[in-house]
């Protein structure tokens, strides 16, 4: 179950599996809590800015007032990364429950203003490559390259074997639907 929740978060489920998972989330309180916790972990790791108190409730209230649009969107066939759309849908399903959930989440009061300042992109004096490269999926055998590379990274002398985790997630090499 936890694997599938995590896969849904990462947009790795196909449409059918994602729909099933979202139904499960709507039904299964424990699964929904896991979903919430995973997001909290993910936010904490990324040091995402905390939302203001009551943000979820305000969004939910505004959504309730919005007129329902019945015209369906045209479905784009075979768009890459399409499963990610489920993520948004699942998020809105979870939003209502999150209102309650955030209620007992520990609230951080001291926020370092510098660290949390919004990132403004600035055209720094950048060194640009001559040609913009084609973006391709990770090559087959990426793990072998990474394993061969890792031992030479000076990072090893600061944190031991830890950088070797970079070598290995075989799932990364599965083609995304």
């Amino acid at each position, binding site marked *: 179950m936890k694997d599938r929740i*995590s896969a849904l978060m*990462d947009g790795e489920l196909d449409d059918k599996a994602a729909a099933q998972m979202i139904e499960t989330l709507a039904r299964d309180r424990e699964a929904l809590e896991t979903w919430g916790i995973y997001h909290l*972990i*993910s936010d904490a*790791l*990324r*040091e995402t800015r905390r939302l203001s108190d009551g943000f979820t409730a305000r969004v939910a209230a505004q959504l309730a007032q919005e007129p329902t649009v019945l015209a369906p969107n045209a479905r784009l066939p075979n768009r890459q990364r399409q499963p990610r759309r489920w993520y948004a849908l699942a998020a809105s399903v979870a939003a209502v429950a999150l209102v309650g959930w955030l209620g007992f989440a520990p609230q951080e009061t001291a926020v*370092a203003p*510098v660290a949390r*300042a919004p*990132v*403004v*992109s*600035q055209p*720094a004096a*950048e*060194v*640009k*490559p*001559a*040609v913009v*490269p*084609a*973006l*391709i*999926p*990770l*090559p087959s*055998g*990426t793990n*072998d*390259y*990474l*394993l*061969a*590379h890792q*031992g*030479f*990274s*000076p*990072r*090893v*002398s*600061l*944190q*031991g*074997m*830890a*950088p*070797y*985790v*970079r*070598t*290995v*997630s*075989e*799932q*990364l090499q599965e083609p995304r639907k």
Partner: protein
Amino acid sequence: MTLRVFGALLALAAGVAQAQSPETLSWLRKINEATQRLSYTGTFVYQNGGRTETSRITRYVDASGDIEKLEVMDGVPREIVRTKDTVRCYLPDSRVVKVDRRTERGFPALVPERISALARHYDISLGETRRIAGFDCQAVVLTPKDNLRYGYKLYADVNSGMLLRAVTVDAGGQNVEQFTFTQLAIGNVTRDMVRPRHAVRAWRVEDAEAAPARLAGWGLASELPGFHKITELKRRLGESRPVGQMVYSDGLAAVSVFIEPLEGRRDPVRTGLASMGAIHIYTREVANHMVTVVGEAPAVSVQRIADAVEFRRPQ
């Protein structure tokens, strides 16, 4: 806000010009020494490009050297055990063990003179103190002086120097990679705790057979500022492919150049840039060889090194 501005703000806020002070550099040394000296066991979370994985790491030190074991707890099971001169990667699902021996000088160490050399490419300063997994930690902030490398925030235990968190930051100030211990116990590690879990009698062994070599004719038309060649070798990748490998490093980040003959290759080479969080991989063809450049450096650096790879027929 660029990292540089961020760094400048930090320095201003502190009211002291701490960059490159002996104290700052001694923190890096302290982290380095802790990594060599301590036995520990702990759980850390690795985050890269939106992916999160939990792993367990154990390090055992005694007079005969040290052994380190890494077990990835999420996804496909993997276990990596490093002894003094060998890394073994156990993949129980496919019943494969990948073996990588070091014949030359073992693993690269961040020796004191190299730590001082880091200051040429990074502004190094002390950041905030923060509690991580129960340890009071000091942040050491490395801000790159150009956009050919990432910035780093290293949080080390004030008492032992053990690195509890390492964050890699891109030029936009975004975290691209992070290692964080969620639990750590220093000391009390036994030899048994670092033994591989798997009996590998019927497993396939993929030995890299790495050996120092001069890759005659191969090199970079121009080196990337700060990145120098640290080694050059021949090895095998995967089941049998023989490849050449050249490694370039600025003292903290490393970029490997892999060179494989195209001859006898079934699939066409797919050229271009692939990325996975802080890691970039750039593939191109040079002189009837496939060149794959892999490194934990910004895309621009990996691509520039790749574009500089050339073959000149040895005279």
